[in-house]
């Protein structure tokens, strides 16, 4: 087993315990999608594309009173070290569902009855915490597509590594560490839309872990905001 943290509290990839990985987001990278975003979250490389609102197929899925949201999280065969079968796995189906539910409470689809908003997320390179990074990209892509939203959704994980609560666990810490807690958060409303926990934490650790994760979400939010401002308000003042 590799050493996850040295005696100075520096983690295996050189970060402090309260430091997130480098995040960069680009908005509107796909011409054919209505909205899109590309995120690099540490070594994660993720593309998100949004279509819609558009006609629902198959028709029986349509809701007469409201639009619906569909989501697909997919890992490319080359996204991990050993080739991944491109067919949707148990894990991908579950992540698609939790991402959909995390975005559902943010989007306002009441004005688009009988339509669907499709969110496609493609993991090009995975490095732990990909569901959070995927959510960050998807949320920016939804804004780019002009889907009305109550708030942005920002996501970041926290966890327990070498008996310490750390922000933004990477792949190695996820596998060898003691706990991993992905959190998605609406920063202006102060509401949590996704919270999962894999591992064991005491109630005190749990509280600290959640707080740490929310702190990470707020940092990600600023980056999301900057990326959107970059595309839409690059030149000129209001």
């Amino acid at each position, binding site marked *: 087993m590799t050493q996850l943290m040295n005696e100075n509290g520096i983690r295996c990839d050189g970060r402090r315990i309260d430091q997130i990985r480098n995040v960069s987001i680009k908005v509107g990278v796909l011409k054919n999608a*209505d*909205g899109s975003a590309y995120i690099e979250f540490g070594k994660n490389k993720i593309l998100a594309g949004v279509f*819609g*609102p*558009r*006609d629902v197929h198959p028709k029986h899925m349509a809701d*007469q*009173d409201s639009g619906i949201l569909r989501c697909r999280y997919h890992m490319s065969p080359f996204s991990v070290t050993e080739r991944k079968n491109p067919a949707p796995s148990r894990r991908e189906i579950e992540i698609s569902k939790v991402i959909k539910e995390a975005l559902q409470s*943010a989007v*306002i689809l009441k*004005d*688009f*009855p*009988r*339509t669907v908003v499709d969110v496609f997320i493609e993991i090009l390179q995975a490095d732990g915490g990909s569901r959070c990074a995927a959510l960050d990209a998807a949320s920016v892509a939804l*804004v*780019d*597509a*002009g*889907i*009305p*939203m*109550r*708030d*942005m959704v920002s996501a970041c994980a926290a966890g327990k590594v070498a008996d310490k609560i750390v922000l933004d666990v990477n792949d190695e810490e996820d596998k060898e560490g003691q706990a991993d807690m992905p959190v998605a958060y*609406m*920063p*202006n*409303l102060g509401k949590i839309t996704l919270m999962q926990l894999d591992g064991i934490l005491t109630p005190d650790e749990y509280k600290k872990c959640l707080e740490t994760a929310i702190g990470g979400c707020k940092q990600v939010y600023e980056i999301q*905001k900057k990326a*959107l*401002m970059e595309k*839409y*308000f690059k*030149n*000129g*003042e*209001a």
Partner: protein
Amino acid sequence: MMEIVKRKYVIPGDVITTGPYRLEQNVYQDGDRIISTSIGISEIYENAVRVIPLSGMYIPKTNDLIIGKVIGHSSLSWEFDINSCFIGFLPAQDVFGRDYSPTKDELKARLDKGDLVAARVANFDRSRDPLLTIQDRDLGKIESGELIKIAPSKIPRLIGKRGSMIQTIEMATKAIVTIGQNGLIVVSCEDPVGLLKAIEAVKMVDAQAHTPNLTERVKSMLGVELGENNDTINE
């Protein structure tokens, strides 16, 4: 007349203001905070708050002039692609009159697949797809012209304050520009140079819609003298 307009760049979730205001498009209230739901420019005027969106799809509104493409027909109506998440319906009675009979009249003879039509939204609500009509002056099949597609959210900018932008373009190029609220625009002009200029101007508005002094820059691109009063263009 000169009310104070406060403008700000916002993204979804941004708090625009607090307090009692009338809510208009793309905003919602959470407690006493008024929050944006879209990326765009927020405006506070005459006790109302709204956000002019910079992205998004066309949502039909009753009485909007739109340009649609025929995608097919049944025996009673045509269906139109109106660049929206909904399909536009034009009933056959609207074209043939009250005594329309499916056995006698041939829909294809009037409008066929791929035809472009200028129409007005006669009725639209949440429960049904938008109903169109071509029973008005200047509506009906578009015979010629160049089709341009721009973001529907930028149409107000293309028209400008009291039509100043579109008048500038039409006067400078002698082109006729038909603007559909759904983001489809047909430009026709006798003079090919004027046509190209007009298309370029429309595309320029699309690309730079959110920047100030756009009318001035369009004018200089079209070679209209700067500082010219809008009133003289109107004559």
